């Protein structure tokens, strides 16, 4: 199977008068001979939740660090929050964005409040007290403000790091594995928070291993494995990679399935999966299903079920990563 090319679908569905929140063109980062990511191009619109997926070592965190001005790109160009990604713009770019790294990186001997006070000052936040309170409330840590960061569980430290990232009310928020190590309830709370940030118009760049998280939260996703393997809305990627299929189960095997399915224009091909189970590859499953039903009834078959076979983002991801390995 041919991999979908990244560039044509690398633009967001909607755009803003300000231009893209992030625009990346042929960006490459090398550490000596080792290539972290290569020739990556995409645009992200303001207010978009953009998922960045890929296996370990694919270059996701390096991409975040590069866009966050911590690392200088080896080649290519980019703009972040409307500013060209150059060393001269480092301070201005970092004033407009916030990054929550995978490791919370809190000062263990300081309280949660003291950690946030330090970062509020570093971001030049006015009315820091109110902003800190608001960030702590948003992540459900208002009652733990006086606790030392080192005494918090991993999940709570992760939340404190998220509160820190929210302090400056950034235009663009980079979340590097934000639910890593969180229990399902805490992860759900982070998802809800991301949803809330989206409604506030915050652009979110989310790297994650949790594919159901990306599928649920992201407007578009990109799959990176040193090079960009694919980019688009999750359902677009699914349609690009997997043909639409109908799974037909009858009470008894059909006497002549070729006659039944061969006459339906929407059915491209079919195969028998089980004694009385048939998998049909169709051009459009919604249009094909009524025709298939009618053909089966005309043939006198007892239909048990006709169902569209769903492919998840996980299927897409595994397919692309497997092909990259091959």
């Amino acid at each position, binding site marked *: 199977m041919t991999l979908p090319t990244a560039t044509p679908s690398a633009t967001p569905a909607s755009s803003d008068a300000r231009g893209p929140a992030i625009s990346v063109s042929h960006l490459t980062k090398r550490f000596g001979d080792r290539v972290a990511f290569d020739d990556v191009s995409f645009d992200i619109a303001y207010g978009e939740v953009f998922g960045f997926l890929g296996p370990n070592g694919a270059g996701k965190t390096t991409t975040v660090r590069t866009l966050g001005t911590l690392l200088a790109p080896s080649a290519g160009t980019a703009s972040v929050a409307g500013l060209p990604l150059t060393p001269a713009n480092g301070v201005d770019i970092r004033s407009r964005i*916030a*990054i929550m790294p995978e490791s919370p990186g809190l000062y263990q001997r300081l309280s949660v409040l*003291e950690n946030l006070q330090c970062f509020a*000052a*570093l971001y030049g936040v006015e009315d820091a007290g109110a902003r800190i309170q608001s960030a702590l409330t948003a992540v459900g840590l208002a009652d733990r403000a006086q606790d030392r960061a080192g005494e918090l569980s991993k999940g709570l430290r992760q939340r404190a790091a998220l509160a820190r990232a929210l302090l400056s009310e950034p235009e663009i928020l980079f979340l590097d594995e934000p639910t890593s190590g969180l229990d399902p309830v805490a992860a759900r709370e982070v998802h809800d928070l991301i949803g809330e940030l989206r409604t506030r118009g915050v652009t979110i760049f989310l790297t994650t291993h949790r594919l159901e998280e990306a599928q649920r939260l992201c407007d578009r996703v990109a799959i990176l494995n040193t090079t960009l393997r694919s980019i688009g809305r999750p359902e677009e990627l699914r349609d690009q990679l997997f043909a639409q299929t109908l799974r037909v189960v009858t009470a008894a095997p059909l006497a002549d399935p070729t006659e039944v399915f061969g006459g339906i224009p929407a059915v491209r091909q079919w195969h028998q999966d089980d004694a009385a189970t048939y998998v049909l590859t169709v051009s459009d499953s919604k249009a094909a299903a009524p025709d298939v039903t009618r053909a089966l009834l005309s043939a006198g078959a007892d239909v048990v079920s006709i169902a569209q076979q769903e492919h998840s983002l996980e299927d897409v991801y595994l397919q692309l990563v497997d092909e990259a390995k091959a």
Partner: protein
Amino acid sequence: MQLSWRRVLAITLKELRDYSRNRPIILAMFLFPLIFTIQPLISIFAAKGLTAAALSGRHELLFMLGIPILVPATLAAYAVAGERYQETLEPVLETPITREEFLLGKALAVFMPSVIISYVVFAVYIAVVELARPDIAPGLFGADDLIVQIVFTPLLAAFSIWVGIAISTRASDPRTAQQLSVLSSLPVFFVAILFAFNVIAPSLELALLLGGVLLVADVVGWRLIAPLFDRERLISGPH
């Protein structure tokens, strides 16, 4: 380059809070002063028949300049290597802070307690000698000794800080950084000892020359060390 004092002081305040709860750091802050105070006091009180005249020419207080040399060396070594070790460096560097602001904030946090501790220890030493042995006090220190102490303490502390921070930016872990930093400060301390025991005769001209050299080193040290602070290596390099 525009400097944000708010960001500088945010780092300083954070560091001071962190020091106050860090036992190894507190221990280091008090260990050297203790060594440099007890030894001279014992030597004075144990020796019988000492007179002010016999002590004239010795500069015991200069020996105690080891405090503003070694205490900041220990603390400064922790500045960058400690942040890397705790994985707190990346979140700080993701903020709008510049490397110059970061280093200045770190240096101030080391400078303040080092100088305060040094002055307090000198004051305690002088007070003890004045109260317990007023007869020999004029032979141990005069006005010129006090002026040297007051002027050279911040100069030496700042020099030690920049050396310590320079090592900290390149070291792989805080312990190695501390050892190297203290080791690097020893030559300066030996010079102070040579003065203390009159191997090198102190003079006003020499004091002005050394003071000038230290002042220049302290002022340019900040600018010289900033380029060593390579964000890319510190973030993605091996720990």
